[in-house]
């Protein structure tokens, strides 16, 4: 008799759990890949919800969302695309907010190739300079900003190679095919430390801040999981993870 009631309880709790647990699809800009994986896994443990992450270029996600892609949340690499979705009434009104401010770094896969300054760039001592395509990627726009400030556009242009997004730009540098590249600090940093190679973290004065916005999409309107994840992004736990990957804490920037 006792064992029956125990199993009834078990079945009941399983039913309750699945009734509350919710699957959500989340589109995430490439630069935010590493922190988002960590944040999502913490969130899954804490809430019991299941998060399916897709990583890619923000522009691609924007086009896909416009054409009915089944995402509940969108974490863009910029502010323009979420704002555009808002104007097109594809998001839940008032859900747009800045979740992170990205930092740009000049990076080489070789130890000691660059010091914490732009000297090697200015001396043109490198074969190729990898930059995310500025037409498509906000980190590419920021990189062009920096080169403009250093008056290096014309002198380095013949050595540019464009990555389709910031992930591919990183790949060009990490395989050694480009000596240098402008990447997201989040790609080369872990637990507050440079993972490999050498880098120059670019001073904020040299480029417009890379504010990254997230939105709750129409299809996520009735999803408690999507709303819970948005709330979770604003917790200290989530912010600590973002900071450990080199994103600036939001309190300082707003």
């Amino acid at each position: 008799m006792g064992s029956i009631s125990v199993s009834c309880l078990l079945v009941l709790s399983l039913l309750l759990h699945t009734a509350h647990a919710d699957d959500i699809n989340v589109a995430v800009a490439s630069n935010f890949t590493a922190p988002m994986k960590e944040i999502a896994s913490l969130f899954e443990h804490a809430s019991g919800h299941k998060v399916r992450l897709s990583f890619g270029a923000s522009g691609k996600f924007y086009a896909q969302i416009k054409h009915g892609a089944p995402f509940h949340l969108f974490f863009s690499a910029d502010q323009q695309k979420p704002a555009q979705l808002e104007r097109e009434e594809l998001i839940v009104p008032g859900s747009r907010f800045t979740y992170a401010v990205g930092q740009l770094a000049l990076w080489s896969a070789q130890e000691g190739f660059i010091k914490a300054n732009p000297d090697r760039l200015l001396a043109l001592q490198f074969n190729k300079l990898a930059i995310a395509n500025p037409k498509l990627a906000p980190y590419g726009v920021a990189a062009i900003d920096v080169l403009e400030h250093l008056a290096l556009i014309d002198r380095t242009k013949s050595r540019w190679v464009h990555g389709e997004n910031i992930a591919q730009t990183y790949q060009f540098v990490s395989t050694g095919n480009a000596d240098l590249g402008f990447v997201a600090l989040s790609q080369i940093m872990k637990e507050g430390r440079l993972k490999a190679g050498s880098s120059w973290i670019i001073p904020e004065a040299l480029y417009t801040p890379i504010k990254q916005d997230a939105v709750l999409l129409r299809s996520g309107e009735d999803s408690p999981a999507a709303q819970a994840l948005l709330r979770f992004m604003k917790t200290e736990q989530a912010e600590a993870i973002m900071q450990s990957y080199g994103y600036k804490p939001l309190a300082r920037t707003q």
Partner: protein
Amino acid sequence: MSFSEADLTAIWLTLRLATTVTLLLLLIGTPIAWWLARTQSVWKAPVAAIVALPLILPPTVLGFYLLIAMGPHGFFGQFTQSLGLGTLPFTFWGLVVASIFYSMPFVVQPIQNAMEAIGERPLEVAATLRAGPLDRFFSVVLPLAKPGFITASILGFAHTVGEFGIILMIGGNIPGETRVISVQIYDHVEALEFMQAHALSGAMLLFSFSVLLALYWLQRKQKIALLN
């Protein structure tokens, strides 16, 4: 339909790439096809499999390996560096090397099929007339396999024009050097410039259809000629 200057640069680059690759592939592919058509070796199956690999491998796999192999630490990259050529990714010749791998089966297989169809008889006849092996190859095999060469050239050229994934991975999107039509279209679509994307995509569709149409017409004509 109107093309911007960047579009025209991409079109010209693509045609230059496809022509270079097709010519080189005819040179490299012919001896491979001949060997595959004639050999009884146990190596026939593995070589044929390697040639056919790009038919089923995703371009991302090829692109990934090529990026590493042709990079400064890869074996091919160290070879090109030792020749004083530097490394190949992000260059026109890097795309040529990648495309040779990628379009190889489209050139080798039609030539091989045509050569196999010739059979032993014409070669034996030529041999009794005292034609040496080279003579037999040039005056018997090549003319008889002509339809195979035409099919191979058309398919090799068209397949290189339509290449995208590998080029995106090793090209670096440099105007006039590695930004081919397919990459240019991709950029237009990603930047939401749908009008320009339409113009180039329409042109590609028309080109691909015409190529295949020409190919099938040609094959039909040959069949009719054979029947008569």
